């Protein structure tokens, strides 16, 4: 087995420069120094994000004195709540070295289900249950295809991205359902009582804390990093890679279904194309958070900061007279930077190696 390219992912986790912030196992003697050395790169990225968030906050405030008003912050949170929620299981999945692009379609399927079942006068509690089960099943399909059949998650979830959207269209057709009672649609206008936080962000905060604890302070979390760094070694270490990945995909399906319900209520519109385009926004947030696309590296604190940065920059740009159509360019550029920079050192190493090989080939 070639030590240079473990599991064929090109993952540079072996070299000290790219050791993850949290990783399974290490020699007991060097634990303290090793831990510090390993924390440094991760903490550096989160610190960079803090600076970015502060810069965006200053920018927002300079553009409009209303930026920090309760109303604007409420809107900021409300418009990004679903993306924030879906970013959490996406983070876990990406850390294991997989990806789930079907989240926007599971969201759409959930919205269509909500609409069509409401049209058939099912009680709302029953509808919620059905949607939860469907979300779990949707994730299970992804997980089983990836782990049992062994297909790459990118391919599988691109397939389910189309499949679930198609199911949403079959369920609801071109109809829109907009007759939901105020009790539920109030999530779109009212904050959680005694706060200015929208319900979706409330869910996000609770889920983020839970994810943070699980990911960074439990063996289950460490096993997620381990399988991202080296799936074969993780399997030999006794970690149940397939079962964990399936669980993560099912969690992603469940949370996407929840996001679908929240989006439908806040817009008071169940329509099959709810959520189109959100998968890429979610991946953008997760990559901005410093989660490595190759797996094995990332933190929930980063996700939290990335959500703030993403929502903040979109809101701030809306408040300027910046050409709204170019907002995508700014966000796309941010995403490219966030992918390139952590891999810059790896990229330069490859360049150096290529240069060395080239000079060796020349006779003089």
């Amino acid at each position, binding site marked *: 087995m070639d030590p240079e390219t473990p599991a064929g992912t090109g993952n540079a986790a072996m070299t000290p420069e790219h050791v993850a912030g949290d990783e399974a196992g290490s020699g007991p003697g060097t634990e303290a120094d090793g831990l510090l050395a390993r924390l440094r*790169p991760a903490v*550096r*990225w989160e*610190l*960079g*994000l803090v*600076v*970015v968030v502060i*810069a*965006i906050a200053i*920018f927002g405030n300079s*553009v*409009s*004195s*209303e*930026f920090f*008003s309760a*109303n*604007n912050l409420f*809107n900021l949170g409300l*418009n990004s709540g679903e993306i924030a929620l879906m970013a959490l299981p996406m983070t876990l999945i990406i850390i294991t070295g997989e990806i789930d692009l079907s989240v926007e379609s599971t969201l759409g399927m959930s919205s269509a289900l909500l609409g069509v079942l409401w049209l058939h006068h099912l009680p709302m509690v029953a509808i919620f249950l059905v949607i939860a089960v469907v979300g779990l099943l949707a994730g299970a399909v992804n997980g089983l295809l990836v782990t049992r059949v062994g297909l790459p998650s990118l391919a599988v979830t691109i397939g389910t991205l189309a499949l679930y959207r198609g199911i949403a269209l079959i369920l609801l057709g*071109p*109809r*829109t359902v*907009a007759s939901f009672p105020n009790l539920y649609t109030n999530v*779109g*206008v009212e904050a959680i009582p005694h706060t200015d936080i929208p319900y979706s962000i409330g869910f996000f905060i609770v889920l983020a804390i839970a994810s943070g604890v699980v990911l960074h302070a439990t063996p289950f979390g460490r096993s997620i990093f381990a399988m991202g760094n080296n799936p074969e070694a993780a399997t030999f270490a006794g970690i149940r890679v397939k079962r964990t990945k399936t669980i993560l995909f099912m969690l992603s399906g469940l949370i996407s279904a929840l996001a679908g319900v929240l*989006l439908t209520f806040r*817009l*008071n*519109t169940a*329509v*099959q*194309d*709810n*959520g*189109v*385009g959100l998968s890429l926004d979610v991946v953008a947030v997760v990559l901005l958070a410093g989660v490595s696309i190759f797996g094995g590296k990332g933190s929930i604190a980063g996700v939290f900061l990335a959500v703030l940065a993403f929502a903040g*920059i*979109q*809101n701030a*740009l*809306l*408040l*300027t*007279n*910046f*050409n*709204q*159509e170019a907002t*995508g360019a700014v966000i796309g*550029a*941010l995403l490219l*930077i*966030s992918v390139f*920079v*952590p891999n*810059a*050192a790896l990229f*330069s190493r490859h360049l150096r190696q290529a240069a060395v090989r080239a000079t060796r080939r020349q006779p003089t």
Partner: protein
Amino acid sequence: MRAFLRRAPLAASTLVVTSALAVAACSSGSSPSGGSGSGSGSGSGSAKTGQKVYVVPKNLGNPYFTVADSKGSGGAIAAIDSLGDTGIETSGTAASSASQIPAIQAAVTKGANALVVSATDPTALCPTLNAAIKRKIPVVTYDSDAPGCRSLFINQASTAAIGTSEVDLLAKEINDTGQIGIVSAAASATNQNAWIGYMKQELKKYPKIKLVSTVYGNDDPATATQVTQGLLEQYPNLKGIISPTTVGILAAAGVLDSAKYRGKVQLTGLGTPDSMKKYVSDGTVKAFELWNPANLGYLAGYAAVDLINGKIKGNQGETFSAGKLGSFTIGADHTVLLGPPTVFNASNISNYHF
């Protein structure tokens, strides 16, 4: 090199984001911070100037709305500017409520004194629009309504007239017999569904015409082309298509502009004369309708400013003058009609330039 790159992430990300923000700040100029009181029309008749009216079409980059909103074409912003106020166009890029709502919220945060909105969805915008009305910001919908959540709705033509006349136009072209399909915009669009409703009613007068399918192009050229092709493949005996959306009819005309379909499948709908000239001259389309979108926008802009200044309250029976367009009376359900639709065909299309 290695040490530099280790410090790179922090420095580089900060540098790039700050410069991106600097570019954005420079290109936006000095944007005045919101907070100067959202003008509550005092009804005293003295017109305030310098008010900000935000024009929010269904989406940006849609040529129909560019004509309806721009100053250069004599649209909404031209009307607003001519009255001494400032008109600003903003919206999302996808014709969906999830895309349009943040733009409306931002407009309110930026201190809008009035909103002129073409609604992507009849109900999804209501909480946001009602919140604006509560803050004494008049909301004028134009082109596509959000019933019950606005101060005034500027309707381009009687909804019933648009629906029925489209069917009558097509029926004549296919000799009252055959299968027809509809290529619409977004499934949720208020105006589309209202017109289609009247189309279906009018079709009862033609028992030999059968509406076999309605497909949705989402006001996106690529999607509209695809759904039209799908429609033609699914129903090989299709005789006619109605596309009551300027993006849709253009896409459908592109698909039908071939020897295989020209003359065999008739197309009509709502289109702009400039974009349809080529298809009328080569016979793909015999006739289609529209109104002048710039006039629609102009009227909406004028009405919005009149509402801010208290010249009208939006109630039935009130009359107001809209500059070059003449005077209008508010009808039932706070609606103002621009006028009857115009039918364009080979004989008159060269007279119009929009």
